[in-house]
Every structure is written in structure tokens, then in C-alpha cells.
């Protein structure tokens, strides 16, 4: 995604990118990034929580003009679903591999 942000930004359109993978984002260096501490697949919020998604997107867009070139800023959103304690330890491990880990997309 960072490559795409950089390409659009280079053409004269400012970009702002969400991220939930700080290390990947820091390596590719998009122009502006906002980090939320959520599991992958939830970069703009929780399922069934449109007010929360609106709040997150609003916070991201409002923060964008204040970012300096190459900055990744933590937006302050954290994953606190009651059944998700310790999700960080399980994410992307063999215990909790992505559903399409064989390389074929899961469709639906």
C-alpha cells in the first residue's frame, strides 16, 4: 500500500494511509501514516460499529494536515474487544494463521 501512496503523492495528490503494522509501514515509508493498535483486517474499526468507524476515519482525516513528511503517528485507537485479550501474541502465528494461508483467497 505504501508504494501506491507514494505514487499518488508524487503525482500531486496528498495521501494519508492507515496502518496497523508499524514495522511494515516504517520500512516502506509512505508520506503520512496513522497507526491504530488493531489486528489486521480492522484498520478502520470494529464490525457492526459504524459510529466507531466514523470516529476513527474522522480522527485520521483531521490528523492528516498536521503530519510531517514520512511521519507515522499513533492515532490512539486500541483494540479492546472483551474476548481479544492478548491478541498481539497470537496474530500471524501458526496458532492463528490467516484463513487463506495457502495463497488462495477466501471468497465470500
Amino acid at each position, binding site marked *: 500500500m505504501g*508504494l501506491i501512496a507514494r505514487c499518488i503523492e508524487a503525482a500531486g495528490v496528498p495521501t494519508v494511509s492507515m496502518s496497523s503494522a508499524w514495522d511494515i509501514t516504517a520500512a516502506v515509508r509512505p508520506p503520512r501514516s496513522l497507526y491504530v493498535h488493531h489486528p489486521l483486517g480492522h484498520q478502520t474499526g470494529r464490525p457492526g460499529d459504524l459510529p466507531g468507524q466514523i470516529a476513527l476515519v474522522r480522527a485520521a482525516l483531521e490528523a492528516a*494536515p498536521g503530519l510531517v513528511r514520512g511521519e507515522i503517528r499513533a492515532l490512539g485507537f486500541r483494540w479492546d474487544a472483551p474476548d481479544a485479550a492478548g491478541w498481539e501474541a497470537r496474530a500471524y502465528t501458526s496458532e492463528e494463521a490467516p*484463513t487463506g494461508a495457502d495463497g488462495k483467497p477466501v471468497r465470500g
Partner: protein
Amino acid sequence: MGERPRCYTVRMAWKEPSAAPPDAVRYIERTRELYATQAPYRWVHHDPETDPPPWTPIRRSLASSRVALLASGGVHLASQEPFHFRNDLSQREIPPDTENAQLRVAHFGYDVRDARRDPGCVFPLAALRALAAEGAIAGIAGPALSFMGGIYSARRVRDELAPRLRDLVLRQRADLAFLVPA
């Protein structure tokens, strides 16, 4: 030349990303371990000395900005062809007024269960519509551009997918592009 503002080509300062928050998941390390038997996914790395991020200042207020949405969560219309497999470099254009019930998700690289229940987790079209309705943004610039990440060739993203998406964003005359990975 058109009136489109030019990007800055001069060297200017960039911000070195701060250290990752201590509880941030180390995905690069984890994917190496998880897919140890497959060819390693090579995450893109730019050296800031030679390849700092491009930069176009944000000049318009948010309330007067038309926002383009780009998302790599593999979301598509039920009536569109799903994404196929790794290295699918195609995109789908999704009209701004599309309801979530018309959306489907096809992706191999993340747990799609929640995105299927509510695509808004990775495809915030409904949230952008709400912000446009209340005047926080001027509007959604055009069809959302949806594609599937996890492409193994950075070269093909750089040479094929990114310029194609860039041209679509330019055609929408967007003031700001909002990018959401999954």
C-alpha cells in the same frame, strides 16, 4: 501543463519514523516464521537517504476536500468478479453510494471473517458517506478503488498497479487520497 500542483522534487527534510510502540506486532518477523517453507515475502524497504517519501502539502481544508478511497482488503461488489489469487493486480471500482450489503470480500492474507460481517472494518465507504453528509468533507471523489494486497512482486505494484490507481485518482480530481490496507 495543467493547473494541478506539482509535487516537490527538491530535497526536503523527512521525519524518521519513531520507534514502534512496544506492543506493536512484529509482522515482518512473524510472516517469516509462519511461511518459513515458502519463498519469503519481501517487504518493500525504502532508504530515506536515497528514496525519501514524496510530498505534496495539504492545502485545502478538510471540509472543502473531495476524498478518494483506496483499499487493499479485497472488497468487491457481489456483481463483480472476485479477486483470484496471490499477485492479482486488478482493481474494482465501487460506486460511492454502495451499501455494505452489496459488498463481498476475497483475500488470502488476513482473517476476513469480520470484514465479511461488516466491510467497514477495512473499507470505510459508509463512514466517508456519513462525514460527507455532515459536511466534514466535501464529498467522496469518485468510485472507491479496491484491490487485493499481498502482491509478491513489488516491481509489478510499482510499474503496473500503482500508476493505474494513480491515474484513476487523478481523473477523480481528488484533493486527498485515503488509503486503507488490510
